[in-house]
């Protein structure tokens, strides 16, 4: 495959994504540039402090977060990977038929064990 063919192939297949990336970049840069250009600039010490919904900032924002955030992230990663396995399964589902369904039920069954475990251990609750 020559270089030009490859380039045109990428551009036809990935043009929407490229378009989206360009718009996203442009929107971000444009918003910053325009607001910088049109904003009135009267800096005062009070204005330059951290804005915390009107209350006085009382400490640094870099404080240790509770470990339960980590649990939620971990659970999200695990169930995300479960869903990833569902995509190729759904694509070839008509080919592998009943045996495929059973395989996936076993797979999801094991995840159900994990889910019930997390639930019973109270990992899904905030307080």
């Amino acid at each position, binding site marked *: 495959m020559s*270089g*030009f063919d*490859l*380039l045109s192939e*990428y551009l036809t297949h*990935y043009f929407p994504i490229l378009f989206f990336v360009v718009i996203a970049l442009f929107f971000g840069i444009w918003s910053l540039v325009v607001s910088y250009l049109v904003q009135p600039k009267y800096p005062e010490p009070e204005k330059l402090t951290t804005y915390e919904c009107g209350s006085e900032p009382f400490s640094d924002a*870099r*404080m*240790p*977060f*509770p*470990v*339960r*955030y*980590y*649990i939620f*992230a*971990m*659970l*999200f*990663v*695990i169930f*995300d*990977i*479960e869903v*990833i*396995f569902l*995509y*190729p*399964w759904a*694509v*070839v589902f008509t*080919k*592998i038929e009943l045996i*495929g369904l059973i*395989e*996936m039920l*076993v*797979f999801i069954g*094991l*995840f159900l*064990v*994990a889910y019930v*475990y*997390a639930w019973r*251990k*109270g*990992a899904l609750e905030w307080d």
Partner: protein
Amino acid sequence: MEQAFFFYFAFVIAATSVLVVALRNPIYSTLALLVMFFHVAGLYVTLHAEFLAAVQIIVYAGAILVLYLFVVMLLNLKQDVRYHRQWPMAAAVGATLVIEAIILTAMKGSTTPAAATDTETAIGGAGNTEAIGDVLYTTYLFPFEVASLILLVAMIGAIVLAKKDIGEREA
């Protein structure tokens, strides 16, 4: 042209990887890692591994990065104490990798392109996701089910490790 894509992605991956370890603020490091994940996905696309590219974005950029971010916030790393005395070890590992790269470049034959062509003929023009599904749920059924078990173990491990903290709050 293919090389141009490769060199762009490779350069950005290398540059952002350096930023990940060199930036002083851990949050900025994580954001550099995000850029790196996206460019690794781009590299997969140039290798015609579209499914892998999608997985890279969904799992790595979407989920793992959030995990990293939470770990960074959890540990509350101070900006100055990050490296301790890790530079010598990093230099040793880096030197090993550079030597490996030099040897691989010196031994560069026609092996890699041939292997890639073989793969493309082997899947016979089937879609990327379809080709993966074809073998994953037949030939590699056992590893697939084992993957489920490993994820179960990972989840139980995470909950057990963090349970102490939850228990303390309840008491």
